[in-house]
């Protein structure tokens, strides 16, 4: 699109200023995580980079067993993202390559309905159910209830619908059964979509707070997000922001890295199709 030079300059300025404003909180958090306690406690606040970065991260790491929390968060996020991908690919495959089997519409709606039932709507009974299963304070409770994915099922179904039908026919002529076709043809073709879904679901799971809060009690089963609260709650008097921010940076780094790596596939594989 044609734009004038003034418009161009205005756009640059607006974008730069907005981005500075959006980035500021995180930059300030990062800076604070390098300060000594005195520096972080000064008013007016200091914006220089301090020299206590390692001390603060070590303190945060030790204070709330950050290593364990990061491990737990990584484990459940990878497991849930992978579980959602596998389950939704299988379901989407069923909905696209087997014609109008009996009950198909009902099954499809049942899976889509996940969208309508966020955790708060069913939190008490789900909690009790997990308790009855004896899953309290286990990885099962933190992963399995999240395995179904309406988003994923829709995403893969939509993608499969764009794959030419001839490909399945060719595979049949080539002697490949449905599972082989899925594994050897559809799965490799779905790479972009799988990466996109992995990114979304990893971040989604990493950022879960309420459910891990109620189904875990022991410190070795807690996740990073709860770790933040533990860091904050330890502060009865003046907050030790330098240490808290070190913990915060650790908590936000993994999803941020995944986002930056997979951003491309996410936009191509997911965001561009979402509105259909």
């Amino acid at each position, binding site marked *: 699109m044609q734009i004038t030079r003034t418009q161009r300059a205005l756009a640059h300025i607006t974008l730069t200023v907005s981005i500075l404003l959006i980035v500021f909180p995180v930059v300030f958090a990062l800076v604070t995580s390098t300060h000594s306690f005195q520096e972080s406690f000064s008013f007016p606040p200091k914006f220089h980079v301090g020299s206590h970065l390692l001390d603060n991260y070590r303190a945060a790491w030790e204070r709330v067993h950050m290593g364990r929390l990061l491990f737990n968060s990584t484990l459940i996020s990878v497991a849930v993202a992978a579980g959602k991908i596998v389950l939704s690919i299988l379901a989407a495959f069923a909905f696209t390559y087997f014609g109008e089997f009996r009950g198909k519409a009902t099954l499809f709606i049942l899976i889509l309905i996940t969208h309508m039932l966020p955790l708060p709507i069913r939190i008490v009974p789900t909690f009790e159910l997990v308790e009855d299963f004896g899953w309290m304070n286990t990885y099962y409770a933190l992963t399995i209830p999240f395995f179904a994915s309406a988003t994923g099922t829709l995403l893969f179904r939509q993608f499969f619908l764009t794959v*030419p039908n*001839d490909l399945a*026919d*060719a595979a*049949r*002529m*080539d*002697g*490949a059964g449905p599972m082989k076709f899925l594994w050897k043809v559809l799965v490799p073709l779905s790479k972009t979509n799988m990466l996109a879904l992995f990114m979304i679901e990893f971040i989604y799971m990493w950022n879960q707070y309420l459910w891990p809060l109620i189904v875990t009690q022991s410190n070795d089963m807690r996740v990073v997000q709860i770790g933040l609260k533990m860091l904050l709650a330890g502060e009865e008097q003046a907050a030790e922001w330098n240490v808290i921010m070190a913990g915060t940076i650790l908590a936000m780094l993994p999803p941020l890295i995944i986002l930056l790596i997979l951003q491309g596939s996410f936009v191509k594989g997911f965001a561009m199709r979402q509105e259909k």
Partner: protein
Amino acid sequence: MAEIRLEQVNKRFKKHWVVRDFTLTVADREFVVLVGPSGCGKSTTLRMIAGLEEVTSGEISIAGRVVNQVPPKDRDIAMVFQSYALYPHMNVYKNMAFGLMNRGVPKDEINQRVKRAAEILGISDLLHRRPAQLSGGQRQRVAMGRAIVRDPQAFLFDEPLSNLDAKLRVQMRAELAKLHERLQSTIVYVTHDQIEAMTLAHRIVVMKDGKIMQVGRPLEVYERPANRFVAGFIGSPSMNFLNVRIAREGEDLWVDGQSFRLKIPRHRASAYRDHVDREVIFGIRPEDIKERTRDDLPEGVEPLRAEVDVREPIGSEVIVTAAVGGHSFTARVSPSMQVRVHEPIDLAVNMNKMHLFEPETGTALNGD
């Protein structure tokens, strides 16, 4: 190589009959083309032979074995798809090898077969490319290569050339003919393009609404169409159809269109005696109506004066749409002829090539 037999084959989707009473035997090493407008059931027939669709009733056998219950992979036939259906994530080699791998063919043999097929098709230097890096013509070759490596009893082609541009299509058509000569295999080929059908086929099967209209050698179908549909479908521009009566005058029969009269040659006339004074459809191909260049016309060629409506020069000739009375028809005249719109034109109709059809059923009147 093998014979393919279809016996009273029917196919129904929901309540709709897509293929009805299809009976045909494709001889060993024969090249048979199924041709017809879209929706005539030709592709469905092909897919039933492939095993991709179940038959509703009837029997299909390949090399003497009834295959109704045999899944596609065990029918020992290969298929080339309209969209080529190449696996986008596999290179050319893997695309061709996939079917062999699934059948547990040893690696060395796969390698050998793929290399040989690639050689035949002239794609040896493309083996490591992906489909996206190939031109349309190259993809087409890979699709054929995938079929050839299987060394099947028969090949099925589903409109394999329709995604190519016109020039490439002509070239690939010639190559296909050569390939068949080389492979000496049974081929069933589906197309809507009658030129492909005419140039490639040993026999043509013309279909409409799920039924066979006519089976015959290309020239047979062109020269002696069994009915009005086949007459109109084969040949381009298509045959002219005019509503006329058969009139008798002494010993001679005439085609009488009120505003014009054309004498039926003696040797044809005997076949139509029973139809005197009846309404019939007179069919004549545009190539059998030429400009009239001299006064004395040879035996069986009749003069006709009409008014020009449209003039379409295509270089080698001029396609003229002309009218006489209420009848409109097309003729192919020489470009050297002066043709002006809205002016009369003198034409010569080769009545030796005329056709007559029953108006209700469209069946050709042969009298015999």
